[in-house]
């Protein structure tokens, strides 16, 4: 059942800076099976988003490459739909129209009725059919993120890429959306790559957790297989020793092996930089 599906081989990327190229990522190797739920976790600035953007085709790897179902990823496309951190719904379109745009754009063969049914079906999945004619500015952050997920799902992606999808939400809303996401994943079986900085979220949702080392030249540090039975129940798992073991593993990686060293001098420089920026703006 599990075949080779998405493959990252020796992926590395340099960003040009005035001081010469900055090596953000190096030697990222990852094989992902169809239907797998992968979390990327690491400290901020470690290049998680860069990995995701390379898979999405929004960034181009300077070394290595990404292969999806036998063809190389060269540009962005709807088969690798992205759920952005800040929902990025088009603010001038209603909930319905936002999803409709994606459907119309990616499934041209569909008739008017089929389009409408498919839009409604996807909004149904995220429980947002009650706000079809609302503008994004009229609904809450959690609802916007739901619509963002519906829009991504409506593209019928092979891989769903999620860039800290729940990062900007409060804890309760986040838990709700995580449950919704688990339901949807159980139903549709999409391959998902999700960036997160929340250890509980990673353990609860993932089949595998990919832990990244700190940059520059960040790479994959460890990969943790999460072998918990699905469907998973957050309440039952809270007391589960296996669950807590996985949490412990991730926490150990993040706070012992890859402890982020922020020295006083660094912090000073950072704040000095910020203040000089402010004076520039003024």
């Amino acid at each position, binding site marked *: 059942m599990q075949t080779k599906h998405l493959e990252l081989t020796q992926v590395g990327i340099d960003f040009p800076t005035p001081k010469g190229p900055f090596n953000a990522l190096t030697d990222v190797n990852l094989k992902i099976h169809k239907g797998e739920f992968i979390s990327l976790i690491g400290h901020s600035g470690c290049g998680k988003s860069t990995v995701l953007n390379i898979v*999405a*085709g*929004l960034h181009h790897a300077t070394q290595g490459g990404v292969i999806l179902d036998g063809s190389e990823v060269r*540009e*962005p*496309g*709807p088969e*690798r*739909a*992205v759920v*952005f951190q*800040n929902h*990025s719904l*088009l*603010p*001038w379109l209603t909930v319905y129209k936002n999803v409709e*745009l*994606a459907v119309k*754009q*990616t499934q041209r063969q569909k008739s008017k009725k089929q389009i409408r049914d498919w839009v409604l079906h996807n909004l149904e999945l995220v429980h947002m059919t009650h706000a079809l004619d609302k*503008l994004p*500015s009229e609904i809450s952050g959690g609802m916007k993120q739901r619509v963002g997920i519906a829009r991504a799902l409506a*593209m019928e992606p092979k891989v769903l890429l999620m860039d800290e999808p729940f990062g900007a939400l409060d804890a309760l809303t986040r838990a709700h959306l995580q449950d919704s996401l688990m339901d949807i994943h159980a139903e549709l079986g999409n391959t998902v790559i999700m960036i997160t900085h929340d250890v509980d979220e990673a353990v609860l949702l993932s089949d595998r957790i990919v832990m990244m080392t700190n940059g520059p030249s960040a790479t994959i540090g460890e990969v943790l297989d999460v072998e918990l039975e699905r469907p998973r129940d957050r309440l039952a798992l809270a007391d589960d020793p296996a669950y807590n073991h996985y949490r412990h593993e991730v926490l150990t990686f993040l706070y012992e092996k890859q402890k982020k060293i922020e020295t006083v001098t660094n912090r000073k420089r950072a704040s000095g930089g910020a203040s000089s920026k402010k004076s520039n703006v003024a």
Partner: protein
Amino acid sequence: MSKTVQALSQMSPTRSSVLWGTIMSSVPKLLMPIVGILLFLAVWNGVAKSIDTSLGQFPGPAQVWEQVVTLVDEHQAQREKAKAFYSRQEERNAERLALDPDYDAKVREYTGAPTFFDQIWTSLYTVMIGFLIASVIAVPLGILCGLSRSAYAAFNPLIQLFKPVSPLAWLPLVTMVVSALYVSDDPMFSKSFITSAFTVSLCCLWPTLINTAVGVSNIDSDLVNVSKVLRLKPLSHVRKIVLPASVPMIFTGLRVSLGIGWMVLIAAEMLAQNPGLGKFVWDEFQNGSSESLARIMVAVLTIGLIGFLLDRLMLSVQRWVSWDKAAVLR
């Protein structure tokens, strides 16, 4: 305003209480503008009395108002004359036709001097055409410059070079070019109209162009990424993402452009003696009668009022076009 307040206070208190409430709540909003205007009129009146020019005393509000009435009367008289002229002409043609059925009746235009209100109309028409030409060029070009760094790099030096040029420097060139190129036996538009409109266009281009380019290049990168993931074609990218996202900046540019265009037009009309409000001002100045200054003052206030109304017009168009109805527009 004060009259309505008095009239209302005499109404029965029960019926008018609701209306009274709404009026009273809008009083603070209206109060300060009215105070401002009254203060201005008082200062104007005071200062005007102490200024003596070679054309007599500088006109105060009363003299200017007098001229407003005169200008309206003159306009009506001119309309009457025109009407009379056309009816006489019709009669004569009918008579000629009765005598000779083969007679080819000619309708001649009435050639009376344009009144103040004719000049207003000419100016409005000219500024709108000039502004439209400029917008049709500037918005697409601005979008191109906003989307493509190389297009921006190519156009930027030209924009920076021509942006600060005064319209009056363009005027002789435009006049000569129009005379040379616009040759037709039966011209649809007069040369003076084309000259004025093009001069306005040349000055209206830049603010719209620059604001559009800035607006387009500052679109939220997430929205651009959405468009990339959806593989929107360039044209639908512009239509579905770029245009709605940059509507506020485009309109900021358009409003600045229209304001500049209106100022430029008056100056161009004065300098080139092209029909319009500017010519009215210049003619009155040359005329040098004792009423001239008051009539010029009427024109000055009219120009200001029309400029203000044009800006409001653009604002309501923006409200109508923009998706963001909640945005505070000022």
